[in-house]
């Protein structure tokens, strides 16, 4: 919906935003040729997950927090497992870490294929959505769905279900898939990897607005390859800190117009998490195939145009499929499906790279494993301030565009982040439920 004020000033509004997970709206006010005000409104009902976790057992967060998001349940399971295991002083053996990485690849494949093909590509090809695009480009949509299906197959085998995996537990898995079962997925994953390489060259040919973001990029960096299931935190300005220090570096602030919290570094610096940050800080960790695809698509050492995030997401899709095949090929059936994680009083932190960026969990446990406090900082709430900053800068240089064109471009600027509004929504009053 757009409005033109009788004064000649403009208010651009998209209410609600289509094709973002959850519900949100944005408002841009332009007065006398200047961008006066930009805001993203979040009106998804507040989520009570952090309060809901208090008083529950230390074994429950993987199942409970998986329900926060229908698109990235594995991210919630992995970050919560890491945090609880740290609080209990347990670290899992290498084969369990690898199986977690494999499961996480499945989630990236599902999530990135969905966003690239059904949510983001319609913007660049001039369609209102996936249904309209499918009418003209059936083969492309079929290709995207086939890639997503390969991710579903991986999630179903390793996680027990395609959505909201039930096979994950603190300490590992209830049951390990066998090498024989994993090899059965190989042909489907190989076809999907070929399709992902084709996806990179397809999206690299889109027209991108000329726009660069100056914000600081933040992601995990790990010794195990491109970051997924853990690591420490690094940034494009040279910051480097452990996950345990996350809450002392990142300060979340409540913004009155929104149920979501906005996060800043040191309480003032806006930053970006997600594919562009991961790529800038870890492209040297990509597999040769993914790196070749990135180079062929014209990506350099970093990409600062958020509209081109679709290209980086496609490169990550190649990597996730390549990495899944690498793990499967090297898999040997040995070691337990899980290790014991006896409860202990303490605080634990966990961070992993959700498809949309770094997802941080912190739990405080009593000696019997009862959860005393829980903090969850999802990637979308970390990106909200940057989304607003992108909008402000982008609109300021494009006031000559028609009203409809500018509105569409603003919606696109938000969709660049693949925002998951329902994940980003916090309820501020955290002390009400404390008993």
């Amino acid at each position, binding site marked *: 919906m757009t409005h033109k004020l009788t004064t000649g000033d403009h208010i651009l509004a998209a209410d*609600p935003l*289509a*094709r*973002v*997970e*959850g*519900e949100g709206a944005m408002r841009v006010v332009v007065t006398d040729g200047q961008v006066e005000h930009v805001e993203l409104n979040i009106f*998804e*009902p507040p*989520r*009570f*997950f952090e309060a*809901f976790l208090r008083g529950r057992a230390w074994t429950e967060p993987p199942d*409970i927090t998986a*329900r926060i998001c*229908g*698109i990235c349940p594995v991210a919630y399971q992995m970050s919560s497992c890491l945090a609880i295991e740290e609080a209990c002083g347990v670290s899992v053996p290498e084969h369990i870490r690898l199986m977690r990485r494999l499961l996480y690849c499945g989630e990236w494949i599902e999530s990135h294929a*969905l966003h690239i093909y*059904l*949510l983001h590509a319609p913007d660049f090809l001039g369609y209102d*959505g*996936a*249904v309209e695009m*499918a*009418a003209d480009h*059936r083969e492309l*949509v*079929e290709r995207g*769905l086939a890639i*997503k*299906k390969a991710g*579903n197959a991986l999630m179903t085998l390793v996680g027990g279900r*395609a*959505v*909201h995996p039930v096979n994950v537990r603190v300490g590992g898995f209830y049951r390990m898939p066998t090498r024989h079962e994993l090899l059965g997925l190989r042909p489907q994953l190989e076809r999907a990897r070929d399709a992902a390489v084709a996806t990179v060259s397809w999206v690299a040919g889109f027209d991108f607005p000329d726009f660069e973001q100056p914000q600081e990029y933040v992601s995990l960096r790990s010794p195990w390859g491109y970051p997924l299931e853990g690591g420490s935190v690094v940034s494009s300005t040279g910051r480097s800190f452990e996950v345990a220090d996350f809450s002392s570096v990142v300060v979340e602030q409540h913004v009155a117009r929104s149920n979501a919290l906005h996060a800043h570094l040191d309480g003032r610096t806006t930053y970006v998490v997600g594919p562009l940050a991961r790529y800038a800080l870890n492209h040297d960790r990509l597999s040769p195939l993914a790196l070749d695809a990135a180079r062929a698509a014209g990506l350099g050492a970093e990409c600062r145009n958020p509209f081109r995030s679709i290209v980086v997401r496609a490169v990550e899709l190649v990597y996730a499929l390549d990495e899944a095949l690498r793990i499967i090929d090297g898999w040997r059936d040995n070691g337990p499906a899980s290790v014991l994680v006896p409860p202990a009083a303490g605080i634990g932190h966990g961070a992993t790279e959700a498809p949309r960026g770094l997802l941080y969990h912190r739990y405080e446990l009593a000696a019997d494993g009862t959860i005393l406090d829980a903090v969850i900082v999802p990637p979308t709430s970390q990106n909200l301030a940057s989304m607003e900053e992108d909008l402000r800068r982008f609109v300021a240089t494009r006031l000559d565009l028609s009203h409809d064109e500018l509105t569409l471009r603003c919606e696109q600027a938000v969709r660049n982040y693949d925002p998951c*509004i*329902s994940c980003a929504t916090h309820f501020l009053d955290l002390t009400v439920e404390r008993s």
Partner: protein
Amino acid sequence: MTSMLIGLGNPQRGDDAVGLAVARRVAALELPDVDVVEVDDPISLIDTWCDADPVVVVDAMSSRQPPGTVRAIDVTDQSLPDDGRSAGGSHALGLATAVELSRALGRLPARLVVVGVEVHGVSTGSELSAPVRAALDSAVSAARRGLEGGGA
């Protein structure tokens, strides 16, 4: 061809779980030649339902009707009324999109009926509300009529 009953919903979002509750009741009836599945990602329906006929999807509905109202809509030849959001959930792409994308890709079942149950509340961690619980029998009956080829 086997018929299929699909329950759609999130078990931790109050009345959003009504589709799952109906699916469990139908599963307990052990009807011959009926597959019963539970789904919480609407877009995966495209692959779930393409080899079955007829298909009935039971989902939570938000349409300003009294809570517990049960409505069956045959979407084989018409779109699902949708105001842009999926009923009761916060999915990236809702049931209406899954139906239309399947139609565009030629993957819609020969007959597809959506049974909607009007929700009362979908807050996190809540149980089914009393009016929705009271509507379960009638939703199961509507689903069975759909599976038998009628009722919409």
